[in-house]
């Protein structure tokens, strides 16, 4: 008799791939998608307000080309350097026998917790002559190499150690294995990480502004702040967004290849680490230099300034009110973003029609908008459409929603996808309507993932700089804007308490949580940020 214990291979659930989603989901999702697209629309509108001819004339100047060259040189250098640093760090942690690897595994990811403007500030304070290309490059490499390091560590962990054993049995040495076999297989992950870094290098505002390196974001900010040429600010923003779109698209494709390259599930067993021998000395030097520059130096600087004046002259009232403003704004932003992300994430997880996919993609548009550009776009939106709330909390919150929606939509989607659709079917057979099943079953069952995503948005908002700088309500000072204000006048001692508070309450928890989500998201095959 047949006693094969196997699931029936009928294909239930295909029904949901097509068909129009119900209005309860579709309505809010369309609204959220339109809100996400509005800044881009107004940016383009502004860029072209003097016509195509004027736009072309404005862009076709020598200084525009110089700007492209400067930004690309910085992004290119940073990308190459992070690939080397991130990959080497990953190999040491995942495959070598260097002592203390368990601690190093976490320590190498921690520079994610250092906001680029804070790191830049620390270096400039130590030696003002470092400002410029090399200063900006140093800061960007130090703060972004974890984007290469994290996926490569994960990729190396997935490689079957049997492969290395086979290679040895075929006469390959350790060095040849490391370069020719192990790291070669991590190539898709390296590529995906490198593209992410390139995008960050183009988009970052804090490091280039503090280092006074005339890259896109700083020039855009200058053109906007000076106020005499808003069209140029908008036009340069559009160029920057175009570069960003290319990099995001390439990164998405590369990440798709990472997933495809993963055959079989789970990690079978851990391979025997490679014995470093005399190579242990340069490895130890490498670890010391990287962690020293990326982690120890900025943290040590911030702490030492605080001690320098022995706390004298520090207004704890100011620090507390800045912290309070930061937390308040971030809490509003996180809750509103979560409310906006719920219908989009549900729709993305449960419906796979073309319409559903396009609406989800629309909410990811902020992925391609540098913070400074998004801030300027939201100023236009505020001036044109929402004048009553311009320079008020609602507009700032709206900007944060657009900026951090991708983070939360990804979390909601992954969390909902982990809840079997079968549970909704059962709920309906027990007399609950479809939307009732979402409220009573899907969302409660996915709550921990949704909560983690909301917390991440809360923390990321607290350390955000450029949007806050442009859109904060008049008179409101957050930790980041206070820090920025003191930095621009080189008052390190006054900035120190804000920097320290920011590190403690926002940056470190963000790094821990995003590391956690990144690892889990990759295991689930979900999308994170």
């Amino acid at each position, binding site marked *: *008799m*047949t006693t094969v214990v*196997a*699931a*029936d291979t009928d294909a*239930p659930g295909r029904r949901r791939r097509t068909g129009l989603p119900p209005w309860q989901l579709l309505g809010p999702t369309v609204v959220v998608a339109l809100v996400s697209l509005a800044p881009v629309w107004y940016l383009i509108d502004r860029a072209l307000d003097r016509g195509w001819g004027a736009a072309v004339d404005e862009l076709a100047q020598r200084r525009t080309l110089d700007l492209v060259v400067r930004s690309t040189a910085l992004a290119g250098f940073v990308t190459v350097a992070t690939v080397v640093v991130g990959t080497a760090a990953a190999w040491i942690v995942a495959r070598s026998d260097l002592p203390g690897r368990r601690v190093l595994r976490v320590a190498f990811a921690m520079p994610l917790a250092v906001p680029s403007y804070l790191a830049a500030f620390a270096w400039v304070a130590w030696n003002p002559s470092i400002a410029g290309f090399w200063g900006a490059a140093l800061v960007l490499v130090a703060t972004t190499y974890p984007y290469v390091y994290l996926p490569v560590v994960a990729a190396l962990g997935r490689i079957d150690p049997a492969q290395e054993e086979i290679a040895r049995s075929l006469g390959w040495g350790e060095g040849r294995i490391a370069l020719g076999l192990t790291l070669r297989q991590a190539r898709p992950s390296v590529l995906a990480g490198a593209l992410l870094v390139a995008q960050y290098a183009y988009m970052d505002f804090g490091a280039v502004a503090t280092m006074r390196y005339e890259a896109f974001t700083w020039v855009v900010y200058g053109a906007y702040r000076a106020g005499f040429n808003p069209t140029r600010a908008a036009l340069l923003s559009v160029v920057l967004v175009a570069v960003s779109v290319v990099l995001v698209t390439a990164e998405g494709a590369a990440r798709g290849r990472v997933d495809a390259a993963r055959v079989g599930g789970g990690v079978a067993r851990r391979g025997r680490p490679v014995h470093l021998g005399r190579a242990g000395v340069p490895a130890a030097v490498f670890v010391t230099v990287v962690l020293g520059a990326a982690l120890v130096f900025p943290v040590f600087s911030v702490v030492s300034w605080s001690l320098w004046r022995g706390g004298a002259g520090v207004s704890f009232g100011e620090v507390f009110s800045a912290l309070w403003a930061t937390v308040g704004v971030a809490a509003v932003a996180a809750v509103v973003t979560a409310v906006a992300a719920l219908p989009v994430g549900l729709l993305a997880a449960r419906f796979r029609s073309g319409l559903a996919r396009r609406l989800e993609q629309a909410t990811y548009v902020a992925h391609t908008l540098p913070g400074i550009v998004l801030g300027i776009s939201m100023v236009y939106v505020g001036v044109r459409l929402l004048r009553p709330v311009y320079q008020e909390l609602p507009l700032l919150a709206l900007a944060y929603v657009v900026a951090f929606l991708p983070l939360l939509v990804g979390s909601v989607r992954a969390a909902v996808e982990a809840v079997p659709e079968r549970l909704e079917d*059962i709920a*309906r*057979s027990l*007399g609950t309507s479809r939307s009732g099943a979402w409220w009573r079953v899907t969302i409660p069952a996915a709550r921990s993932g949704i909560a983690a995503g909301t917390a991440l948005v809360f923390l990321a908002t607290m350390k955000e700089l450029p949007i806050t700088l442009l859109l904060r309500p008049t008179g409101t000072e957050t930790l980041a804007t206070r820090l920025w204000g003191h930095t621009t006048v080189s008052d390190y001692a006054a900035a120190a308490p804000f920097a320290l508070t920011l590190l403690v309450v926002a940056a470190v928890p963000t790094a821990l949580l995003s590391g956690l989500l990144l690892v889990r998201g990759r295991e689930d095959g979900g999308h994170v940020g």
Partner: protein
Amino acid sequence: MSAEATPDAVPVLEVRGLRKSFGSRCVLDGVDLVVPAGSITAVLGPSGCGKTTLLRIVAGFEQPDAGTVAVRGVQVAGGGADVPPERRRVGVVPQEGALFPHLDVRRNVGFGLPRGAASTERVRECLELVGLADRADARPDQLSGGQQQRVALARALAPNPSLVVLDEPFSALDTALRSKVRDEVVGALRAAGATAVFVTHDQEEALSTADRVAVLLGGRVAQCAPPLELYRAPSSVEVARFLGEAVVLPGALDRDVVRCALGPVVPAVVPTGVGVDGAVTVVVRPEQIVPASDGVGATAGAITYFGHDGLVRLRLDDGTDVEARWAPPLLPRPGDRVGVRVVGEVAVYAGVATLR
């Protein structure tokens, strides 16, 4: 409950001409099924034959391409009707239970009930029915697989559904546990007087558990009958083969007796439509072929030993190969000469089936 509430004349479930394709793959090709009130019906079919799809259409999770479904005489699918799952009163017990992970046992069972004292009482009643009244505060991940399955049943029964459908409810359990949980679930269904349909690919499970078994082959119900009748007189050679090991032989009908390589055998039902040559196909179960010194001569071949019995390959003197299932003391050694005959009635079909 449901058994008393419905007059016998109106079946609880009536499925007519149901068709469903996924892309180019036709899964259900004209399924007819009638389930009388108070009965437990098994839908038996090989893996991937569309059993689960049938249940999902009955529950309202899928729409049929053609055909109709009526619950207690009310059309719920097909022919312009599309009653959503929440208004069908069809309880569902899926594979592996699928309890709501964020709710305890009590809230799982009470999910389909309105809030109130009556519901609290009903939850207690249903948990008692499945013997889990003491686990009301447990979370799903604290229960064993069998307990989860019983909670899933209590949850489906709580709102007093017209019909309960169970999708391979025991296949996720290991063999030792399976028959125990099966007995408990069937006991609870009978105690509740519920009408139930469950799908399975396990012949033994279907035959031993259900009042009626519907065999789903090639997207249609090939036969729907009580287990004994089904096993004794399968409607076709395909059904007979699917229900268990079968020795299929050509034979010739001679009045009430069929002559075949195993000697004269008695048909359970005399087939109609037999040609003038009397050509028929005979299906004999291996356990019907017994040793008999005065029977047909045969030589023993390879023997597969199972412990409680063994399967012996026999080459009859006319060259036909058959398999017989004998108790260990009766088993010959390979090469031994034996005599065999057929006990009991056998299934006989008009025409010559393709032999395997």
